[in-house]
C-alpha cells in the first residue's frame, strides 16, 4: 500500500466521512482515494474550486458534525492558513494533511522536503494552539492518522498531519489493525443546557466545551472573532485574554497525552540522531551502522512534532555527548532542538533543500566525526 492510500484508509477507520480537497502534487492520491472510498462508506468527497474553499468546506462539515479532512502540499498549505486559524478559535476539529514537497513557491513539486515544519506551527496568524504529527512509514501513517482524528476531536482543534513526499509515495506492506482493536475518540456531545448561552463554556472537569451539533435544536453562534460563552462576538479584553489562554492551555496542560516520541537504540546512547518523518529510515540505518563501529548512537524521533517534545528531549540531555539533527530543510526543527539543548550538548546539523534525500552515509560520517571529536 502507498503512504497516501494508508492515510485515507486510516482516516476512514477513524471515522472520517467528509473530505474536501484540491489537486496538488504530491498529495493528489489522497483526494483520488477519498473520491472512491468515501461514497462506499456513506461519506462525502468534494473537489472544491481552490485550497481555501476546501479548508472552509472541511470546517463547515465539522460544524455540521462530520469528521472531516483535507490534504494538500506546501503551496496549498499556505493558502489554507487563514481558515486553519478559524478552526483554532472556533474550536472545530479537523485534520489537515500536508504532504511536504521541495522549495518555497512551486519549487520542485515532485521532490521531497520537510520545509513546512515551522509553517505548521506558525502558519496562521495570532497566538494559537497547534498539534502536528509526522509519520515515518506507511504503516505508521495508518495508525497515526487515526490518532490525529482522536486528538482533533478530544481537544476540538485542527490537527496537522505533516507527512512528506518520501512517506506519501512509499509503497510497503502493512498490517491493517483489526477495526475492533482501534481506539476511536468521538466528539463529546453536550447536554441541552439552555438555548445558545453556553456553547463555548467549558464544564467543570472537562478540557473543552461540549459539542452542540447544528440542526438539533440548540441555536448558537460560531465566529472567528473572540466570543463570549454563547459564541457571540465580544470586544472585551478580559474575554479575549480568557479565551486566548484557554485555547493555548488546553494543549499545554495536556502535553503528556499529546506528545509521542519514538526512540531507537537510545538506551545508553551518547549520540542522538534527531529526525522526524521521512528522514527516519536513513537515520535508523546510520545508527545501526554506527553501533557496528562501536559508536553508541541512537535515534530520537518526535512523532508529535508540535508541540515540540521539550521535556522528553531535556530528559535525554544528561546522557548525551552530541546531537545530530537531520531534516530535509535548512534547520527548522534544529531551532527547537538547539533551544532545548541550550549549549549543554553540542548540536550538529545535516540538512538539504535540493530535492534529494539525505543518505545514511552522510549521517554515519557525521556520527564518526562527532564521536572522534568527543574522545
Amino acid at each position, binding site marked *: 500500500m502507498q503512504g497516501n492510500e494508508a492515510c485515507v484508509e486510516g482516516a476512514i477507520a477513524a471515522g472520517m466521512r467528509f473530505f474536501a480537497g484540491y489537486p496538488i502534487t504530491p498529495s493528489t492520491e489522497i483526494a483520488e482515494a477519498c473520491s472512491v472510498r468515501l461514497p*462506499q462508506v456513506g461519506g462525502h468527497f468534494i473537489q*472544491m474550486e481552490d485550497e481555501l474553499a476546501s479548508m472552509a468546506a472541511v470546517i463547515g462539515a465539522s460544524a455540521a*458534525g462530520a469528521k472531516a479532512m483535507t490534504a494538500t502540499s506546501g503551496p496549498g498549505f499556505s493558502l489554507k492558513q487563514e481558515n486553519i486559524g478559524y478552526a483554532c478559535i472556533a474550536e472545530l476539529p479537523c485534520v489537515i494533511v500536508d504532504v511536504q514537497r521541495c522549495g518555497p513557491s512551486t519549487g520542485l513539486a515532485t521532490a521531497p522536503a520537510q520545509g513546512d515544519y515551522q509553517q505548521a506551527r506558525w502558519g496562521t496568524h495570532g497566538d494559537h494552539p497547534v498539534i502536528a504529527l509526522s509519520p515515518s512509514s506507511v504503516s505508521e501513517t495508518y495508525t497515526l492518522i487515526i490518532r490525529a482524528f482522536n486528538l482533533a476531536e478530544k481537544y476540538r482543534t485542527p490537527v496537522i498531519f505533516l507527512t512528506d513526499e518520501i512517506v506519501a509515495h512509499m509503497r510497503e506492506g502493512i498490517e491493517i489493525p483489526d477495526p475492533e482493536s482501534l481506539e476511536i475518540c468521538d466528539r463529546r456531545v453536550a447536554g441541552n443546557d439552555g438555548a445558545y448561552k453556553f456553547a463555548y463554556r467549558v464544564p467543570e472537569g472537562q478540557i473543552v466545551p461540549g459539542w452542540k451539533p447544528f440542526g438539533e435544536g440548540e441555536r448558537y453562534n460560531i465566529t472567528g472573532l473572540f466570543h463570549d460563552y454563547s459564541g457571540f462576538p465580544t470586544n472585551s479584553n478580559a474575554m479575549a485574554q480568557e479565551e486566548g489562554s484557554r485555547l493555548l492551555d488546553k494543549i499545554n496542560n495536556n502535553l503528556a497525552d499529546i506528545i509521542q516520541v519514538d526512540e531507537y537504540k537510545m538506551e545508553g546512547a551518547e549520540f542522538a540522531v534527531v529526525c522526524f518523518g521521512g528522514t527516519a529510515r536513513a537515520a535508523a540505518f546510520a545508527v545501526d551502522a554506527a553501533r557496528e563501529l562501536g559508536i553508541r548512537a541512537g535515534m530520537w524521533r518526535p512523532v508529535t512534532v508540535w508541540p515540540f517534545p521539550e521535556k522528553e528531549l531535556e530528559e535525554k540531555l544528561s546522557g548525551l555527548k552530541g546531537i545530530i539533527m537531520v531534516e530535509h530543510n535548512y534547520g527548522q526543527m534544529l531551532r527547537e532542538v538547539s533551544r532545548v539543548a541550550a549549549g549543554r550538548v553540542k548540536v550538529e546539523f545535516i540538512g538539504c533543500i535540493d530535492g534529494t534525500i539525505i543518505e545514511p552515509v552522510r549521517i554515519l560520517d557525521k556520527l564518526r566525526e562527532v564521536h572522534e571529536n568527543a574522545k
Partner: protein
Amino acid sequence: MPSELIYNYMRIDHLPHIWCAGCGNGVLTHDVVRAIDSLCNDPDRPIPREKVVIVSGIGCSSRAAGYLDFNSMHTTHGRAIAFASGIKIANPELTVVVITGDGDCAAIGGNHLIHACRRNIDLTVVVFNNEIYGMTGGQYSPTTPRGDKGTTAVYGVVDRPFDIAALAAGAGASFTARGDVYHVKETTELIRQGIRHKGFSLIDCRSVCPTYYGRKNKKGDAVQMLKWQKENGLPMKQYRALPPEQRADKYALGILSRNEYPEYTEEYQKIIEMAMAEKGKEK
C-alpha cells in the same frame, strides 16, 4: 421590547445592532427573518426552525448572522459560501442561508460564488449589496458604480462594476433575483422563494450605506437613498419594456432567472447509493 417577530427570531440581548443609523442591512435582515418565519409557519411544507443555518463571511453584512437566533456561523472573509457548502453536504437536511456582502462574495469570495452556482448546491445566498466596503471605512467595492468615489478611489472608480445577480445567473445559478431596501414586501418574497427553491439561489439586494457611500457620493442620507430606490427600482416587466436609453439608473426587481437543474447533494446521494451497493456486492 421589540416586536414579537424580532423577539422570536433575533438575539435581542445583542440589539440594537452595530449598524449605523439608516443602514439598509437592518431592513434586509428583517426581510430575511420574515421570509424564514413564513417558511417555518408554512402549513403545507414547514421548514423546521432548528434545521435553519445562517452562514456569513466578513463585513458589515456578515454581522447579521450573529443577531439571528438560529444555528449561525460567522466565517472568514469571502469564504462563507465554501463553509456553507461543507455544512450542506455534511448534513443535507439543513436549510442553509448565506448572508454576504458585495466585497465578501464578489471580490475576495468571487471564486466560491461562481463555483457554487455551477454546482447548483442547495444554498440561498442573500447579498447585502451596499456598493462599498463599510466595515473598513468606505473603500470602493466590485459593485461601486464607475466614476463614484471611495476612500481608495478619491478620483473616481475606474473599473466597471459587477452585476452580481447576472454574474450568478451566468455561472449557472438556478435561481437569481434582485431586491432592495425600499421594496420590502417584494424583497421578502424573493428571499422566501429563493430559500424554497431546490438548488443554488441568489438574491442580490441593493442595500444603502448612507455613512460611507451616500455621503461620499453626494447621494444624501438614508431617506434620500431610499427615495432613489423607490424611483429607480422597477418591476421586471416594466424595466424590460423601457427602451435601453431610458434605463440609465433604473434597475429591475424580481426574479431574473429560474431553472430546474439537478441539485448537487441529491446527485451525490445517488453516487453514495451506487458505490455502497457495488461495495456490498464485492463482499
